[in-house]
């Protein structure tokens, strides 16, 4: 009996160690989690003294690894290393094309420490997801970067220039499948739809196939599953150099440095310009002082060499605009997106 109970004690001890090990690893992760989770500082502007820009948080409304995530983390890194601000906490709140994050931002009324990374995708998602919160509710802070779209075909494609592609597309839109890396309402969806409209194709006739990001879209183009792909040009640069895909046109106003031989749509006789962009907004009704803190910090970041280096490395195009000017731009985008989605019957 006694022997048995000692044995049991011994085994309980080992169990204890195992539990401790589990708990330890749990602690590690909860600590990580606390970094990403909405910290206590987020709830209401803590009235502390106005020490220059400390305790700032940037929320990323989609998952780690995406474009918004990379942008927000790069912004935070530059602001920290250039000592523009204290530590900037970046956390992810993914869901419903970014509108879960948007709702949260709108709910954080008056919180001057929080900002949300966003872009054209969130503008569309606010409509397609029938979000109650809209970007008009937020306080625009700054537009940071933009990226031109590209019309891409595989190296074996029968289309050698944009004109032949558009001609075939006009002839029978249902036979020419367009692929993009976003769901309806996202940038890669808006690009071909607006292009179709610009060349006189009824957008509802466009056969758009949504892929789950560039990782799924690229193989579909290379493997000739679709007639052409529409996405940000950055996704394709390496594949262009490798000769796997051809870019028939870029959608920017001017030609792109990285692709000097590729004509713009305008040069090819299509009067259409499209850029995807990313920017930062803050919750509604923040004080002018808080707004100025964000605008000043981002302006200082934008002027730093470190930010220029990052943009160069990542192939981003500078599109820095702040405050009210960004607000006007947001409104324009909002109207254009609403119109095309209405046209497609995606928004009533």
């Amino acid at each position, binding site marked *: 009996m006694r022997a048995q109970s000692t044995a049991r004690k011994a*085994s*309980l001890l*080992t*169990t204890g*160690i*195992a*539990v401790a090990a*589990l708990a330890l*690893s*749990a602690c*590690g*992760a909860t600590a*990580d*989690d606390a*970094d*990403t*989770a*909405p910290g206590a500082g987020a709830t209401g502007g803590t009235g502390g003294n106005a020490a220059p820009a400390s305790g700032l948080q940037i929320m990323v409304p989609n*998952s*780690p*690894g*995406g474009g918004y*995530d990379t942008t927000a*983390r*790069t912004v*935070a*890194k530059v602001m920290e290393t250039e000592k523009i601000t204290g530590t900037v906490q970046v956390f*992810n*709140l*993914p*869901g*419903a*094309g970014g509108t*879960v994050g948007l*709702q949260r931002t709108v709910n954080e009324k008056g919180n001057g420490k929080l900002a949300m990374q966003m872009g054209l995708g969130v503008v569309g998602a606010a409509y*397609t*997801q*029938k*979000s109650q919160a809209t970007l008009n509710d937020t306080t625009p802070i700054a537009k940071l970067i933009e990226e031109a779209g590209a019309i891409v075909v595989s190296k074996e494609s029968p289309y050698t220039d944009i004109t032949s592609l558009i001609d075939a597309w006009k002839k029978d839109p249902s*036979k020419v*499948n367009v692929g993009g890396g976003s*769901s*309806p*309402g996202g940038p890669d969806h808006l690009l071909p739809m607006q292009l179709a409209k610009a060349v006189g194709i009824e957008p509802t006739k466009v*056969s758009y*196939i*949504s892929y789950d990001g*560039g*990782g799924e879209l*690229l*193989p579909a183009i290379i*493997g000739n*599953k*679709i007639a052409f792909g529409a996405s940000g040009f950055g996704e394709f*640069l*390496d*594949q262009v*150099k490798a000769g*796997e895909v051809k870019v028939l046109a870029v959608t920017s106003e001017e030609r792109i440095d990285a692709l000097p031989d590729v004509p713009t749509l305008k040069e090819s006789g299509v009067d259409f310009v499209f850029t995807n962009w990313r920017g930062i907004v803050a919750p509604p009704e923040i004080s002018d002082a808080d707004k100025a803190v964000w605008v000043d910090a981002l302006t200082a970041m934008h002027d730093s060499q470190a930010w220029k280096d990052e943009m160069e*490395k990542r192939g981003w195009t500078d599109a820095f605009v702040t405050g009210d000017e960004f607000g006007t731009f947001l409104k324009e985008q909002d109207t254009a997106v609403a119109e095309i989605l209405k046209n497609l019957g995606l928004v009533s």
Partner: protein
Amino acid sequence: MDNLSNLIEGFANILTPLNLLFALIGVTVGTAVGVLPGIGPAMTVALLLPITYGLDPTQAMIMFAGIFYGGMYGGSTTSILLNTPGESASVVTALEGNKMAKAGRAAQALATAAIGSFVAGTIGTALLVLVMPQVVAFAIELGSPEMLAILLVAFVGASAVLGSSRVRGFASLLMGLTIGVIGIDFVTGQQRLTFGSAQLADGIDVVVVAVGIFAVGEALWVAAHLRRKAGTVIPVGRPWMGREDWRRSWKPWLRGTAFGFPFGAIPAGGAEVPTFLSYLTERRLAKRPEEFGHGAIEGVAGPEAANNASAAGTLVPMLAIGIPTNATAAIMLSALQGWGLEPGPFLIEKQPLLVWTLVASLFIGNTMLLLLNLPLAPIWAKLLQIPRPYLYAGILFFATMGAYAVNAQPFDLFLLLALGLVGFMLRRFGLPVLPLIIGVILGPLAEKHGRRSLQLSGGDLNGLIGGPVAWVCYVIIAGVILWPLLAKVLPGRRPHDRDHTPTEVSA
């Protein structure tokens, strides 16, 4: 072999104390993260990114690779011990693994998972060296029609294991498919079964479903019976795998590898589908199929090998042509950009040392994982001797934390509880759990590929029939469906003949 000499150079490069230290940190963090439900390798790599900017790219990549493999490893531990799958790729492991644990064979289940992962990881990495270009070409050729055909094989296979009653099996499958439909329709943007809730717009995360059905459902079930049945003590069992366990494990390991590796290389192929295929294959091929559902070691060995092999497969398109096929690979690629390196078709040409050091670090990381996990297996197994009320309290704690960690949304906790009640009801009315999970994971995939195939063909039904891979799949389906008839016609043959064993991969 040019690749081999490069690889040797890679080994020479990694075998410095500092690099080995980073590999060790990577696998340890990866295992910890895998153990915790809800926190995946993708999230961890993203969180660690800022820290690694100060490091040399090689060291950071070594660490990331460790996290990646370690995560696949660690996921099995909670699946087996606590019936709480940490990642969607280790959901299948919980089916047989937890039954083994309850029968006092937790140590064997953990060991076969660890060794199977090691074998699969090593073979997968070796294949990475040998057949990179061919695999990429094959993976890109596969389109939606082929994926649909492969998924249909999994569905047909699943319906063969629907449990004692077909009606109950199908009921469970339909519930799973319904849960899978929740969310925004990716083609039309319509909301389905979301009841206007933004939290449901992205659908319910597989981890939340699995943890709810498995862990919470079971905890409720046990709690409901605690008064009537005195808690049976879980037997201790032997600490290591016996000869019989080895004999029954090695073939599933190899078959699991054969399923997992190509799937990892397919864009959006993922690690879940091969674990299901592996489980269903093992169940069909098993000498004692009646053991399935009560803790068959084959059902742990195969799927665990499959998910690790798929992790190796993921690196193929990433390193060869710069295409990430899952979230972790996408973040690793974005990290490369942060260092000013250009991921893509030229990475191997421009940075051969980085690529081959990474590959070498995968071999080292795999070995480290085995050394780290195998001795721990008997210790982990003792965890189950905690008295039941405390054990299940602990399980509920882990389940809740995991469900919350997926999206950091309190809403998910209510979902978890609701799904726990569903899990309780499933047990109460004798409905099998596997078809439901298959419905949740594979249903949306099948829908996506089916609809995409039709979109591509402009609505023409011929679009559903793809290339040779699809044909092979349809032949297999026809075979599975017609087999009972054929078996009657040919009385000389036993139903579990070995003629449709998938090709085994030799290292």
